[in-house]
């Protein structure tokens, strides 16, 4: 299945896009797998990835979290609000 990963701030500027599609095998679409695919698909994100967390449906999740079809997936890097 294809997972659309939302990007923001420095990540979206580095990738030149506010979202990236990532192909994952159904049943194995963990955040860790998406992270590995992202690193391969978009080398410009590589330097950011170690400091990034995944959010699924607006909540932070761990690397083992499995993404279901229809989930909203976002890659959240260092934030700077406030």
């Amino acid at each position, binding site marked *: 299945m294809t997972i659309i990963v*939302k990007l*923001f*701030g*420095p990540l979206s500027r580095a990738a030149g896009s506010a979202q990236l599609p990532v192909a994952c095998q159904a049943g194995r679409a963990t955040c860790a797998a998406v992270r590995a695919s992202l690193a391969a698909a978009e080398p410009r994100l590589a330097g950011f990835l170690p400091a990034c967390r995944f*959010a699924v449906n*607006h*909540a*932070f999740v761990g690397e083992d979290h499995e993404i279901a079809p229809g989930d909203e997936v*976002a890659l*959240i890097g260092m*934030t*700077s*609000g*406030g």
Partner: protein
Amino acid sequence: MQAIAVGIHEGALPAKAPDCLADCAGALVSFEGIVRPFEEGRAIVALDYEVYEPMATRLLQEYAAEELRCHKLVGITVEHSRGRVAVGQTSFRLQVSAPHRQPALAAMGHFIDTMKRSVPIWKRPIHLRALAAVLAGGKATRMDGRAKGLLPTPDGPILGRLLQQLAAAGIHDDVIVANDPSPYIGLAKPILSDLRPPVGPLGGIEAALQHAGSGYDAVVIMPCDLPNVTADEICALLSAYVGNPARIVMAATAEGDHPLCAIVPPSALEHVVAAIEREDFSVVRLWRALGAFKVSIADSSRLQNINTPDDLAAWQEIR
């Protein structure tokens, strides 16, 4: 007042009196985050905030609920901007009310720390596009006609030293305004000449403003003969300017106004041209007529200039 209220607003947050509180609150702590004039050493005009809104709202509500529970608060209100917020405007406001001050203060600090770590909001600085125009067009008659910008200082020629201070204040685009370019060619900066027969510094300012055109938000005017000015004074002028970029700012010390140490919007060109055409060549009179804001420089020696060989000798002795 609702116990928890969270809002993301477009642009700067409007000024607001504290919310009325429930009867049992004996303490209200209100914090406003205001856009500073500098980010990482460079003057900015604004911050652009990007917010992943559904998640930011959800997390702010969760964190607010946590503070409410842990600190037994009466209420907590959180507001944050999205989009562009100019320098000096409010982009974040947090109000915490509690029966007593200790829990209100503790919740305030803890909430902000938590929020900064993880709420998906990003800021991007919009830098001030500033051009420095160093005026070196004087005839230096009192200096025996020597090119004043090349007078020696321990940090190199006086004009080169000034360019270093401008760079330290985050300004890297410079022009030198000199009707005789030959002494300054080695500095490898663009050199402008007056656009008309010399009328004094106002003619140089005219050339600089015309050169800046629409490519810059500000022209930072400095005379070439200041051996003591530092990035601190330049930053003080920049800070005043970015709070109101349409307004001229000029330095002032106890000894008087320094109209040639000023920051001017390129749009002032029409007023400069009009003053020259009516043969009113006083820079200070023009800046005052245009409502210039004065920035007080406490240490007047920072804006001391060198006009004569005696000035130079006295300055070198002090050094």
